[in-house]
């Protein structure tokens, strides 16, 4: 049963990651490869605040969101001077920088040794320290995040982001400060990505930088590519599919050494197939070119 709960918790975590990345990627049309850095920075900020300064869970969560938004601004303001693929390259560079800092600032993050013994989320006298309780907690958090992201996507704000994706010059000629909206969408996405980071740290009770690598960013992006972007349902379907797929492989009785590689091969194969035959993903409105 706990195994089943574990999968659901991971789906909750990745659903927030995918749907928050969907804001810049699917709505605004900015391909970003730095989502794992916001995820990681969220996890590290809240963990360090709780363990080094003894700050409570809720304030730590808020600080980590704030920190991640700031990082999002730091990344997007200079990067948005670049267009298209160059923007993506710039986010890739920032992803690598963030990972390198987490990995090498040993005195603060313990680098490759990771941080063990992260306390369970605790607030208003409730401690979330069992798997079933964590499932309920993560589902509640994910529901709130998904609701907010849904509202944003459906709002005039989301509509304007789509307009910028479709034709930035046109949106500009209608009097919209498109650069400001691009930065806002990126920063909001970064802020939301911190939340699953905090959940992940509290759930695993251990974090190290290898959970927040470029591969992780690519994995989150591929959830959107496979699921489909620019709407709500696509990333939801993509998350369920991408999290369940390796679990299904588990039952194929392959040796462990092959399974890990098989996963990568299947993901890669799927993305190639999709980009060739269905560029908008399972359920998306926007084709990647």
């Amino acid at each position, binding site marked *: 049963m706990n195994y089943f709960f574990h999968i659901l918790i991971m789906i909750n975590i990745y659903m927030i990651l995918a749907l928050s990345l969907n804001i810049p990627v699917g709505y605004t049309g900015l391909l970003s490869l730095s989502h794992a850095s916001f995820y990681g920075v969220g996890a590290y900020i809240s963990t360090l605040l709780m363990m080094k300064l003894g700050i409570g869970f809720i304030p730590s969560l808020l600080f980590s969101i704030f920190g991640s938004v700031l990082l999002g601004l730091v990344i997007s303001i200079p990067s948005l001077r670049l267009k298209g693929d160059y923007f993506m390259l710039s986010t890739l560079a920032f992803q690598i920088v963030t990972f390198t800092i987490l990995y090498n600032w040993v005195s603060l993050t313990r680098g490759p040794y990771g941080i063990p013994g992260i306390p369970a989320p605790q607030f208003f006298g409730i401690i979330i320290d069992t798997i079933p309780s964590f499932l309920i907690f993560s589902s509640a958090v994910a529901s709130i995040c998904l609701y*907010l992201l849904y*509202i*944003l996507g*459906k*709002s*005039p*704000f989301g*509509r*304007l982001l*789509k*307009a910028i*994706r*479709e*034709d930035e*010059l*046109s*949106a*500009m*000629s*209608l*009097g*919209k*400060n*498109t650069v400001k*909206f691009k930065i*806002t969408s990126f920063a*909001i996405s970064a802020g939301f990505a911190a939340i699953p980071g905090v959940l992940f740290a509290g759930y695993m009770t251990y974090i190290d930088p290898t959970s927040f690598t470029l591969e992780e960013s690519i994995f989150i992006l591929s959830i959107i590519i496979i699921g489909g972007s*620019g709407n709500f349902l696509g990333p939801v379907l993509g998350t369920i599919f991408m999290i369940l797929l390796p679990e299904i492989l588990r039952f194929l009785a392959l040796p462990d050494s092959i399974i890990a590689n098989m996963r990568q091969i299947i993901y890669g194969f799927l993305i190639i197939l999709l980009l060739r035959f269905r560029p908008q993903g399972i359920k998306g*409105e*926007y084709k990647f070119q």
Partner: protein
Amino acid sequence: MSILELKNITKTFDGLKAVDSLFVGFEKEKITALIGPNGAGKTTVFNLINGFILPDSGEIYYKNQNIVGLKPWEIANLGIGRLFQDVRVFGKMSVIDNVLCAFKNQKGEIFYYPIFQTWKVKREEKIYKEKALELLDFVGLIDKKDDLAENLSYGQQKLLAIARLLANDSDLLLLDEPTAGVNPKMIDKLLELIQKLPTQGKTIIIIEHNMNVVIDIADWVYFMNNGQITSFGLPQDVLGDPEVKKTYIGI
């Protein structure tokens, strides 16, 4: 009274003077046509007014304010709208969403309003939706309101772009070849629409190659060649000018 005045505007691309010391004014609530051979610099003039490109020298006064150096969205917010030659509708969005995007200063576009003041945004949206439907009715696209803009015909996309421009509520409209590539039946409809606009307080500057259209709707014509205005006046006079006939129509 001129609503827009270009004073001594020069723009050079790779040593070639696209616009050469141009002085030109546009009258309020009139339709002024900008005609001339390809490469005369007409679209460049629009891009300069719009703020998409910066002039090398000179000033552009809109309602007595120098707008050179302002960002395109700032210029748009002052009240200068643009219909692009290649329409540029938001293809993967519904027709009504295209129009809804165009309203200025929407609270719902500031991300915290939809989250914290949902009801306010909803109320605002209801008003905008009604206005958008009115505009779609005005341009005759009401039946297509839920279709994706990319599925409309070229002429319908131009009508949609005009509806979007009207929702944007600009006082000065720059129309870059609104009739090009549109079937004749649709052209009549478009012209009828454009002719109504000055009565609603709009000023129109139109780039047009179809001389019948120019004679029909323009109050004033500027003929542009090699980045300069070489002839101007009432439509019949300019089109009757032997110089214009020679360089443009080829007779």
